[in-house]
């Protein structure tokens, strides 16, 4: 009798531990070989055959197609440089330099990867359409209310994700230091 209850208890606990760990790792997006520059994180190996089992399971669950290594690399930001969550009701400024790339795009999504509805139907910028200062520097303002210059509307959502995609770039699996790839800083300006 004791053996029976013990086995049931063990099996139940094992199921909870195993499935719980799977759920946690897949929803939190655990993957190996990440490249973090400031607030931005990329997983260059996810776009190649060297993709790890966690990333493989994760993309199978979400249904997305990762950007191929010969195509480019995608950097994701969930917080600003100081760790504040990207809140659509606050204003953020993205400024600085980008790593070398033929083109880049910046896109704003909700945490599930959907575009965020807004009045001007702008969901991002490409490197070709951004307004720059004379020095070549640029500032992108992300916030719920219209701003002069490069305004990326956040639609007032509770939380958003920024994805910076570099196309035809030397940044990738071999990149180690932030010196090779300076990424723009994200700073919260107010709420």
């Amino acid at each position, binding site marked *: 009798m004791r053996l029976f209850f013990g086995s049931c208890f063990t*099996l139940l606990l094992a199921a909870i*531990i195993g499935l719980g760990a799977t759920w946690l790792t897949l929803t939190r997006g655990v993957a190996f070989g990440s490249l973090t520059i400031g607030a931005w994180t990329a997983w260059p190996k996810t776009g190649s055959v060297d993709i790890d089992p966690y990333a493989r399971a994760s993309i199978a669950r979400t249904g997305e197609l990762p950007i191929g290594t010969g*195509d480019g690399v995608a950097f994701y930001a969930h917080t600003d440089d100081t760790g504040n969550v990207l809140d659509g009701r606050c204003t953020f400024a993205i400024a600085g330099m980008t790593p070398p790339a033929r083109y880049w795009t910046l896109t704003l999504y909700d945490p599930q990867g959907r575009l965020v509805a807004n009045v001007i139907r702008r969901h991002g910028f490409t490197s070709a359409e951004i307004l720059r200062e004379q020095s070549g520097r640029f500032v992108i303002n992300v916030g719920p209310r219209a701003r002069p210059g490069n305004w990326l509307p956040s639609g007032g959502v509770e939380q958003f994700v920024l994805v910076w995609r570099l196309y035809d770039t030397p940044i990738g699996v071999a990149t180690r230091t932030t010196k090779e790839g300076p990424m723009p800083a994200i700073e919260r300006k107010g709420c």
Partner: protein
Amino acid sequence: MVRLALWIFGAVLLGGVVHLSTVLAMPQTATQDAYSRLARLAPINVLTPLAAPTAADAIMPFMDPAFAVAVCRYDLSVATLKFIAPVSQAYTSVTFYTRNSVAYYAINDRAAGRRAIELDLMTPEQHTQMPEEEGVTAADRLIIDSPTATGLIVLRALAPEPSLMATARGTLAGAQCRAVPQQQ
């Protein structure tokens, strides 16, 4: 007490096994992966342009709205595949995915180095069966080996500004993906 600790230890070990096996089984059991989503829209071995993602509706999560996208869902079990895409003025890329969304090959317009991206896709078996002399005469032919018999070819053309989206879509319209029946 020792008995309880042993039971818990066993549960943790077993839990690890459950965790690893579910992670490894996920790609085979997922019903909402990219291939399954596209199976509803894209016929086999035909290049199908995809609707641009909007806030209300998107075929896949995290699609780049600056790109015009077309997909060729391929099945090499009956024939090899020929893929031709003209390059757009801005940026064009072709990415090959296995049935389980693993990107095994990607090439962009600059790497292709010509006015059009031209590729042959086949399984490793079909590649070895290819007649010898054909490989010699067409030395500059780019042949890609697909690790799986089915998969996805995704053609992406960048619209650097929203007004250029029509041009990017035009690039997709000029591309083709067709099955080449094997001569035997």
